[in-house]
């Protein structure tokens, strides 16, 4: 079986405080001192198979989002190596690329191009985004006139119009009203089905049971276990004991 992602002995730590000198030393070489930093990931070895849906669970602050960002190439690990096959796309906060003073349409172009789309591609997506987000005539109004639900719908509509080889999802469901939530869940499930390999972080175990092939459990930066969905969920509830 081929692997889509291989992580060997990944370690990553975040700096505590703002030391200019220590930061500089750190940027040029990996220093071994454990002072002034806290560990986000430690000794993580993981292989994600091609074509599987892998779920990541763990408590808040256990390192799930950091793990996805290492896979996406946003954070460079301080230790170990990560390798991916093909393009990755991270679905995280859905309206970070937005600007309040641009119209909805201009924001589609801005956010779309940040996600790496070409102009023609974005023009082609426009109708689909209009239909899905149900924004209607507000599309040509500045974003500051939108309600927060409208912004979230526009964000999901743009962010989910991608076709990566590896899809990384960081808990983006759960915005908008119940009808829209259902709709965006369906859209992301479609995306999951059409994409080869998916790694997703979620706290919704029901959803995990539905779509994941395997789960991993992370606690305090360590990979606790990998395995069948029900086993790993059971292990999660064992954590407190």
């Amino acid at each position: 079986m081929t692997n889509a992602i291989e992580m060997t002995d990944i370690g990553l730590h975040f700096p505590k405080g703002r030391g200019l000198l220590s930061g500089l030393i750190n940027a040029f070489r990996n220093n071994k001192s454990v002072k002034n930093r806290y560990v986000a990931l430690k000794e993580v070895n993981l292989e994600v198979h091609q074509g599987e849906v892998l779920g990541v669970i763990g408590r808040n602050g256990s390192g799930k989002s950091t793990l996805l960002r290492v896979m996406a190439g946003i954070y460079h690990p301080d230790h170990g190596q990560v390798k991916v096959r093909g393009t990755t796309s991270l679905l995280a906060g859905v309206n970070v690329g937005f600007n309040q003073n641009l119209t909805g349409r201009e924001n589609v172009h801005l956010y779309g191009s940040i996600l790496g789309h070409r102009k023609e591609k974005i023009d082609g997506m426009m109708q689909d985004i209009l239909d899905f987000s149900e924004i209607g005539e507000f599309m040509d109004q500045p974003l500051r006139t939108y309600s927060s639900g409208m912004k979230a719908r526009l964000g999901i509509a743009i962010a989910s119009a991608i076709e990566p080889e590896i899809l990384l999802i960081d808990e983006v469901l759960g915005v908008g009203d119940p009808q829209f939530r259902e709709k965006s869940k369906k859209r992301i499930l479609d995306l999951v089905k059409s994409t080869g390999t998916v790694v997703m972080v979620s706290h919704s175990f029901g959803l995990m049971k539905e779509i994941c092939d395997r789960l991993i459990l992370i606690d305090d930066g360590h990979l606790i276990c990998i395995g069948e969905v029900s086993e790993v969920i059971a292990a999660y509830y064992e954590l407190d004991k």
Partner: protein
Amino acid sequence: MNDIMQLEEPNPTVPFFKGPQIFISTLFSDWYLIRNMIRRDLKGRYSRASIGFGWIFLEPLLLSAVYYVLFTIIADSAEPNYSLYVIIGVIVWGHFGKSLQAVISCLTGGGNLIKQVYFPREILAISPVLSQLWISIISLTAVIPVMWYLGVMPNSTIWMLPIALFLTTILALGIGLIFAPINALSRDVSHLFRFIIRAGFFVSPVMWTYEMMIVRAPAHWVDFIMLNPMVIPLTYARHGLDGTPLLIETSHLLYCIGFAVITLFFGMSIFKRLESKVVKHL
């Protein structure tokens, strides 16, 4: 699935001397994104003011009026075109200062975006400089009424004006790129540069001119003053607009161009080398 694709490290750290090459290829391959970022900058800055883009002309005009009154009272300059020199100085120095500050804070300001999406981060540095260049070019039209009032006409030396703007832009970009990753480690850098830009206003020929300096400064000071790489761009901009010939030592000119080019290349290299390492600090 696709077996041709290899397992690769996502967005690997690049070798030090590949930085410039990556910058230039990004400039072409992601031009559409850069254009959208520039539009965002410009619209964000002016769309909610009723005078809007009019502020681009008004700001240097008002600022120059204040400086002109102040400095003619203090310095009592005999130079008839002094008001023109002041306004050109204010615009060109403003271009340098604002571009430099925008580049230095590009990583810290874009932190939210950097942590959510991967895109070439050099775009965050290039696009604010290009927006500022656009603003500065528009604001240069504020010199037209002053030139008309003084009866000054540009002539064949006008080529010096784009050279001046170009040198100013790459100087600001180069210095900014070196310090942007360091600013992500510690915000002291942007505070320090706010001071440097204010002090530089007086050390550079904004309120004075190259010719005044040549006449008044002791000869052994000239070389020292010319170490400031902004002297030549400011002087070029003035002579480009007022049409008078300029005599400048070749060694000074070569120093300025060399300084700008080397800083830019070094900046591009160090930025690409460090940007991925400092993301954790944002």
